[in-house]
């Protein structure tokens, strides 16, 4: 019996990264800005998307890919706003992977302006998987507590935006916004920060302006 040691040095997420970069390239060429939303369960991803849909719908075309362990509920909520939505049911998996997005690829209308991907509610695992997005957003809701950025650093280091949600609850909760935002920026100084309340429709316009201007930069690069 002969033994042989071989040096490999290959990324275990290499195949996911490859699929993600193909997805990003193809969507970007079509002028579609793709946004991956990550958060704990219940931070308000779907409600934020419902609000975004109301703001964007008059002028832009958007669609949503929903990721959940079970049920079609989130996609139904988005469709009720008149927005095309697909539900990926992971059947137990705690995150979305690029190949799951790839399977839907042929159904995505080529004339979209924005594609939102709502990841499975989980502040840990989704952070490891590139889905081909242009912008990654992490949501942190006021009731979760101001200590989360340092407890879940990977979600915050890999994101472009931090969206603080449910800010209408700030007067009722012992949530130190200054601490939460300072700690998030210590982990990732490049984070764009948005303070929002979907219930009161606060801060949504600023967030959308950011998406629109980022898409414009993408179109300029394509031109």
């Amino acid at each position, binding site marked *: 019996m*002969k033994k042989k040691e071989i*040096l490999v*040095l*290959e990324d*275990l997420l290499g195949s996911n990264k490859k699929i993600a970069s193909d997805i990003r390239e193809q969507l970007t060429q079509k002028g579609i800005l793709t946004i991956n939303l990550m958060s704990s369960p219940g931070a308000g991803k779907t409600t934020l998307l419902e609000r975004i849909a109301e703001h964007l719908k008059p002028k832009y075309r958007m669609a949503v890919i929903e990721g959940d362990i079970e049920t079609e509920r989130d996609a139904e909520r988005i469709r009720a706003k008149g927005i095309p939505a697909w539900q990926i049911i992971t059947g137990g998996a*705690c995150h979305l992977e690029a190949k799951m997005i790839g399977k839907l690829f042929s159904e995505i209308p080529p004339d979209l302006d924005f594609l939102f991907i709502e990841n499975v509610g989980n502040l840990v695992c989704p952070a490891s998987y590139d889905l081909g997005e242009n912008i990654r957003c992490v949501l942190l809701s006021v009731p979760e507590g101001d200590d989360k950025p*340092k407890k879940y650093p990977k979600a915050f*280091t890999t994101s472009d935006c931090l969206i603080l949600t449910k800010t209408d609850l700030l007067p009722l909760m012992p949530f130190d916004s200054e601490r939460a935002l300072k700690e998030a920026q210590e982990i990732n100084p490049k984070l764009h920060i948005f303070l929002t309340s979907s219930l009161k429709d606060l801060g949504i316009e600023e967030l959308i302006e950011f998406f629109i201007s980022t898409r414009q930069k993408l179109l300029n690069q394509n031109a």
Partner: protein
Amino acid sequence: MHELSIIASLFELLEEKAAEKGSKKIISVRLQVGKLSGVVPEFLISAFDMYKKNTIAHDAKIEIEEVPLKIQCKTCTKTMIKDDFVFICPDCGSQDLKTLTGTELLLEKMELEL
């Protein structure tokens, strides 16, 4: 807990590499796992031991090298090992930092029976 998904990707890679070399048995596997890779080494080991049954790695041992988070300040060029995920240079206060190591999730090497 996405360690099992990662181990499934590892096995795709292991089987591909073993087939390239014409090997039917893997003796050992060594990974590099960065502190900021988002996975827990001990869960990777448990997932590996669970997954390997009835595969070409059924007797294989897994070894993990944990790679520290190493940062370099682009302003004063100091390099440092970080345990606290605070991306501020302790010397000059700059936030313009470069990550040198600590995000890897690699199959470093494997030993095959030929």
